[in-house]
């Protein structure tokens, strides 16, 4: 059993980074995630583990510092919130193009524009579909508790290095700001120079010894044939993620006639909504995608064959709902997919979710569930 503490989600990100042997954090202040860097600066990990912490002049700079440090084969990260992630979009595209492992955290707030500092999930498209230019994917992890903020730091690095790809923790202002009990991980030492060379020496710019060819980190190919090959290889990598690293949680889905699909804070609300609905006699389950990319298509396809409808509950105008529809379409199912969301930084209540379910699926509820398989 690890050390147990009561901590904020943002503080836990910092603590988990130090404990998992992270080599560097580069960031820029933005609400509601500023506690990440503040906690690191108080902890002074450079004295303890040798981890570097640097406040950059902008998010544009911090993501490029991550690029430079990641390209030397070290475990480095940044965190920000929605408008800051938009500024990082260029750098994230370069990181994905150059296949650099690193950890990014988006503690989302409401948008568009300057928006609000209240929690939101409206950056789903940006995180899952690309956000920057070109055909690329991030590994996207959606924590729904402070404990998962802790766990996903280590998991994010593990997946990032497994695939040589940036991983993102897509949290929101509620998970970042709220305090919960958390079991902290034990300390793992930072990789030694020898370990970095052993694990990443075939690509990382660690300095060229006479014994090997020079390592060059770039996303540039002048010949379109070469660039297409790069893209084909990237796509093959993304397919492998879909085969091997989908994560989700299915709650009371076995006998469910309606499935709520929600991640992060919205999933917490939906967990209560399932209880409220079941008290009313409605057979409702919850599917919580933990990886937003790779998206849990297979389980949705399976559920689509025995479920009347899916309600995507999001703190946005409806983004993940499109991926659910694609999966249900692929399954050849007649299950209906609808969306309920609140925007502008508002968290829906469980009662609102159940009312929305009753409203949007009133036909099925009045005339009986038409099995779609």
């Amino acid at each position, binding site marked *: 059993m690890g050390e147990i503490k009561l901590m904020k989600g943002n503080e836990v990100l910092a603590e988990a980074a130090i404990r998992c042997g992270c080599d560097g954090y580069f960031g820029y202040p933005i609400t509601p995630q500023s506690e990440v860097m503040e906690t690191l600066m108080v902890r002074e990990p450079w004295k303890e583990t040798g981890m*570097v912490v640097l406040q950059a002049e902008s998010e544009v*700079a911090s993501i490029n510092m991550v690029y*430079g440090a990641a*390209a030397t084969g*070290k475990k480095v990260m940044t965190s920000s919130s929605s408008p800051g992630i938009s500024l990082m979009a260029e750098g994230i595209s370069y990181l994905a193009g150059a296949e650099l492992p690193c950890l990014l955290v988006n503690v989302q707030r409401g948008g568009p524009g300057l928006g609000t500092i209240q929690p939101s999930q409206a950056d789903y498209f940006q995180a899952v579909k690309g956000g920057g230019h070109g055909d690329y994917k991030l590994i996207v992890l959606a924590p729904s508790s402070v404990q998962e903020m802790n766990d996903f730091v280590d998991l994010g690095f593990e997946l990032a290095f497994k695939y040589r790809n940036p991983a993102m923790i897509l949290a929101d202002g509620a998970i970042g700001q709220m305090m919960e009990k958390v079991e902290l991980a034990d300390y793992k030492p930072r990789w030694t120079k020898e370990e970095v060379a052993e694990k990443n020496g075939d690509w990382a710019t660690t300095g060229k010894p006479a014994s090997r060819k020079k*390592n060059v980190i770039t996303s540039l190919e002048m010949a379109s044939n070469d660039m297409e090959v790069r893209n084909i290889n990237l796509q093959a990598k993304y397919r492998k993620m879909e085969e091997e690293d989908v994560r989700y949680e299915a709650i009371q889905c076995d006998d469910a006639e309606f499935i709520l699909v929600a991640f992060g804070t919205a999933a917490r609300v939906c967990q209560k909504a399932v209880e409220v609905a079941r008290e009313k006699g409605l057979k409702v389950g919850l599917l919580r995608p933990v990886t937003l990319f790779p998206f849990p298509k297979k389980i949705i396809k399976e559920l689509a064959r025995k479920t009347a409808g899916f309600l995507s509950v999001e703190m946005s105008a409806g983004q993940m709902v499109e991926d659910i529809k694609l999966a249900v379409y692929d399954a050849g199912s007649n299950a209906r997919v609808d969306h309920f969301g609140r925007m502008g930084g508002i968290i829906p209540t469980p009662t609102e979710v159940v009312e929305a379910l009753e409203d949007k699926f009133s036909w099925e509820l009045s005339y009986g569930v038409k099995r779609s398989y």
Partner: protein
Amino acid sequence: MELKEVTKTEGTMDIQDILKPENLVYQKTKLLTDTPMHYCPGCSHGVVHKILAELIDEMGIQERSVGVAPVGCAVFAYNYIDIDWQEAAHGRAPAVATGIARVNPDAFVFTYQGDGDLASIGAAEIMHACNRGENILVVFINNGIYGMTGGQMAPTTLEGMVTATTPYGRNTDLNGYPMRITNLIAQLPGTSYVTRQAVHTAGGVRKCKRALKKAIQNVLDKKGTSFVEVVSTCNSGWKLSPVAANKWMEENMIPYYPLGDMKDSVKGEHSEN
């Protein structure tokens, strides 16, 4: 340079003598790869690459070196010097170099940037990297024009100078003034050695090599940021022959961008100029 004694018939050498290793007076440094350079004839990039490759070899720091290539004509710098390289996004090289240097304090990290990259789109990154006093070398090629994209105006384009986006000459009412960014950099306490050089003459090449050697040594000694501007030609962009471009540079660029050291101290000290 030590001259070798000639042992054959007085005053003559045959080809076999000339090829003997002991008669070698000059060779391409082994750190310069055999990849044919894509630079235009007369361009300063090739000379500056050669100097850097020679110094990295002579100073024995190949294993510690990580170069950061820019977006611009030198985007392929990584094809020519046999060290580890990273390709940065346009203007971001100083931030990328910061990341490398911070988590690898023993590395010798340098950026190689043009005027559009450094003084325009990357103005914030270069100012802040220098202000933090990152232990990196910045090589700044100033030819007053965007070479790779086809000869558009740069922040350093001279007043009245014709470019693809100033077809009637740079008009200061419209486009502002040519930027002496190196003078601004010299004001920052994070920098240790700030100098402006040119490589259009044999003497210039030697001076530039001395300056770069000192700059590299400062980085190795962790004295802060070293910044070497090289006033350069772009004969393709300027639409001049290599010889005419050198002359034009001497008559127009160097009066506005005078050569010489602007700062020589250690991090934390303010420049006098």
